[in-house]
């Protein structure tokens, strides 16, 4: 069984997994989901500032990976491919928001889900503090235009390389760097008191 082989062998790369999935190994898809769901969730969540919608979009991302698995070619890194899909979906969502009044699921009586926050050593006071600051930072991130917002999230929150970000956004590396620089300077300007 594929799952057992992995105990002894090296950890399969993303590219190995998607190839296995392309060849019919559904278990490999599970592993992909497991590897990427939280990472993508945080990316989309920071971008849209709505957890429920972010989860929805991450699901759609995986659904598209599932359905379009044969469109993936090994020339590209899998991570940039899946980020591109998620990013496009998130951006589309943002554009739609502009065109309409934001529809919220709570409007039709669906309660909010509880989202747990991961923290290794839990210190209540510091925790509350961090959350408050995070909120302020998040608000400022959302005041950035989408172009600046996405680069700052990918670079500083998600720690992707400039090369990866350039591939995901399909813009030259120089452009990514200058956007990151401008986004940081703007945030620094607005968050002075916090820093």
């Amino acid at each position, binding site marked *: 069984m594929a799952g057992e082989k992995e*105990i002894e062998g090296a950890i399969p790369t993303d590219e190995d997994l998607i190839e296995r999935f392309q060849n019919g190994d559904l278990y490999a898809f599970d592993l992909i989901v*497991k*590897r990427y769901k939280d990472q993508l969730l945080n990316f989309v969540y920071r971008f849209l500032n709505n957890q429920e919608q972010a989860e929805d979009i*991450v*699901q759609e991302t995986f*659904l598209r990976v599932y359905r379009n698995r044969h469109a993936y070619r090994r020339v590209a890194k899998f991570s940039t491919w899946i980020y591109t899909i998620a990013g496009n*979906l998130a951006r589309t969502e943002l554009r739609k928001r502009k065109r309409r009044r934001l529809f919220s699921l709570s409007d039709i009586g669906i309660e909010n889900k509880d989202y747990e926050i991961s923290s290794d050593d839990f210190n209540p006071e510091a925790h509350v503090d961090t959350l408050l600051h995070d909120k302020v930072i998040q608000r400022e991130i959302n005041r950035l235009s989408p172009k600046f917002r996405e680069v700052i999230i990918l670079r*500083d929150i998600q720690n992707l390389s400039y090369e990866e970000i350039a591939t995901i956004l399909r813009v030259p590396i120089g452009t990514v760097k200058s956007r990151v620089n401008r986004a*940081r300077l703007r945030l*620094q300007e607005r968050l002075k008191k916090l820093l």
Partner: protein
Amino acid sequence: MANCNRISDLFSEYVENDLSRDDAAKVQAHLAACPSCKERVDQLTALRQRLTGMHQIKTTDDFDLVLRARIQMSKKIGRPTLLPQFFYNRPPLFSYAMATAAVLLLVFAGSMMLSPQGDTSRNSANPSPYTFSKSQLTFPFDRVRPAAGGLKRPASSDTAKDFTQPAKTSVVELAGADSTAEQDARRQRARRAMKKYVIPVSF
């Protein structure tokens, strides 16, 4: 100072140690002479740390369950199921397709909720926590089996050992719960998760 603006183009790469030696020296020289830029760079460094340290959220426990349902659903209706798109960008006939799919999903979800204790007698030495029969669920998780010691949350999410352990999904929980109260609560949650994707039909 006159060239503060121009030199600030390099700040970002400076705090990342990503500048050529020449450029880095240029920035350093400027910072030594310009307190306001020095402060700015210090704050940029702090900002980076803040951003990197922002709290991470996790997907809800229902995530895998709902994803599987959506995949099943999309197989039946042959198109993606993104909720907002359905709401806001509805092509003709799509609502009909969605209604059909929702009914299918209801049936599908219903059958799962009503019979969470599937056939475990098949392999009593290593009973599968995935109690849905193949006809109910053809999608993956049935190949992920728990370790003999039971269901533990893996320490790291990306180790090889990890792969043999199931994620903490509600599917696992549905079948693995001991008390019926717990089981009911979990079923309730799963049902709610499903409802989320069924409700749009009424629109």
